[in-house]
C-alpha cells in the first residue's frame, strides 16, 4: 500500500496527521500492521498526559508480539481512540483510517521535522 501523501511519518513506523482543528492524530503505518500481524490489544495513553517527542506512550500487541509506540512529536494527549481499543483488528484492516490517539501539539511546526511519504517508504523498504 502506498503511504498517503497528506501524512507525516516516523522511522519507528508511526504516522501523524494534522487535522483541520489544529490537533494531530497518530496511528501506525500499514507497513507496521503488516509486520505485526493480527492485532489483538491496544494500550493507549490517557487524556491529559503530556508527551515528549519520541516518548514511549502506547503498546500495540499482536498475536505474535508486543510493540511500543512512540510519540512522533511533543504535546498533550486529548483523547485515545476507544473504538480502536474495542476493535483492535481495525488497525489491520485500515491502518491509516484508524487513529490511536490525538495530541494537542506543543508546536505544530514540529511536524515538519518528520518524514514525508516518499522518505518513509524508503525507510520501510529497507526494513
Amino acid at each position: 500500500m502506498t503511504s498517503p501523501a497528506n501524512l507525516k511519518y516516523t522511522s519507528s513506523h508511526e504516522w501523524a496527521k494534522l487535522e483541520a482543528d489544529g490537533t494531530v492524530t497518530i496511528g501506525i503505518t500499514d507497513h507496521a500492521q503488516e509486520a505485526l500481524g493480527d492485532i489483538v490489544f491496544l494500550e493507549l495513553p490517557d487524556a491529559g498526559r503530556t508527551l515528549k517527542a519520541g516518548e514511549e506512550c502506547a503498546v500495540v500487541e499482536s498475536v505474535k508480539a508486543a510493540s511500543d509506540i512512540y510519540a512522533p512529536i511533543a504535546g498533550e494527549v486529548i483523547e485515545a481512540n476507544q473504538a480502536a481499543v474495542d476493535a483492535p483488528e481495525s488497525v489491520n484492516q485500515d491502518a491509516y483510517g484508524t487513529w490511536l490517539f490525538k495530541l494537542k501539539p506543543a508546536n505544530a511546526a514540529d511536524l515538519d521535522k518528520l518524514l514525508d511519504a516518499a522518505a518513509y517508504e524508503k525507510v520501510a523498504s529497507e526494513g
Partner: protein
Amino acid sequence: MANRTPLYEAHVAAGAKIVDFAGWEMPINYGSQIEEHHQVRRDAGMFDVSHMRAVDVAGKDAQAYLRRLVANDVAKLTLPGKALYSCMLKEDGGVIDDLIIYFFTPERYRVVVNAGTADKDLAWMRAQAAGFAVTVGDRPELAMIAVQGPQARERFWTAFPVARAQTVLLQPFQAAEWDGWLVARTGYTGEDGFEITLPAADAIEVWDKLKAAGIAPIGLGARDTLRLEAGMNLYGQDMDESQNPLESGLTWTVDFKDAGRDFIGRKALEALKPTRQFLGLLLLDRGVLRAHQKVVTAKGDGETTSGSFAPTLDKSIALARVPVGVAIGDIVEVEVRDKRLKAKVVKPSFARNGKSLIQE
C-alpha cells in the same frame, strides 16, 4: 544458508510470510494467523512439518535400547503402529527433547524429534547406542504434512480414497504404514487428524491434492496458538535441558512402573522433590501474556513459559511454572511491563475439539 522443506516453493506461491524457524525457512502465516487458527478448530487445515526429523531405530536390541533412552516405556507398545510420547532425558533429569515413538516390531521403531534439536538428538542417540545391537538411522529425506481439524480425516480421504481403508480404523496415537507412507492419528493442535510422513518427492503433489480437497495451508503462528490452547508443551520454551519433566507438566510421560528399568535420568528424578508445578493461566485483566513474565502468587514467584492471545477463547492464556501449593482457581498476578495483571490458575488445557474447556 537456511534449510528449506520440499514445500517451500508452494508456501511462497500461496503468499506465505516466511520466517526463520530453527534454521528453516518456514511459513509463519499465509495472511491472518487468527483465521488460520479458527480454520483448524472449525474445519481443516494442514501444516508443513517436514523440518521435524524422522529417525529409524532398528535391530535386535531396539526395544531394550529405547527403554534405556527415553523416560516413557516403549514396552507398553504392542500393537503395530501404536505411538508413544516421551521425553529423552540427561542423567540429571534435564529434557534433551520431547519426541514421538512409533512401534512396528520390537526390532523396529520410528522416532520423530524436533527440528531445532535434531542434530543434538542424533548425536546423543548414537552415543547411547553403544553396547546395543541397534542402528540409529537419520531420515532427513522424508517430508511430513499434518492435516488437523474436525473435517481433516474426511478431506484427506476425499483427496486419497485409497488411504481410507488403511486409516479409517486407526485409533488416536496409532499409525498405518504402506508404500513408503506413515499415516498417524496424531497432532499438535488438540484436534483430530493425521500426521503423514512421506517421501519428499511426493510432497508437492500431496499438498496440492489436500488443498484441492479443501484443507487450507496453516502457518507456524497458528500452530503455536493451537498447541498452547491444547496445553501441549513446546520444547525450548516450556522445557529444556535445565528443566525436568516432573516440573514441566510431563509427569504423565515418565513411567516408573518397572522398577528394573534403568532409563537415563531415572535416578535424578527419583531423588527429586518437586518444588514447582506446571499450570495454566487465564488472564482476567485486559492485555496479552507472553513467555518469561513473572507470576506473583501467595506461595512465591513463578514464571510464564508460553503465553499468547487464544483465538478460541478470545482471551489471553499462558503456561507457567509456579510454586507447589498454588491451586487451580487461585487468582495470581502477572507482571506485564509496568503493571500487574490478574490471572486465574486453571488446568493447562484450554481448548480442544473446537471448544473452550474453560468454565467461566
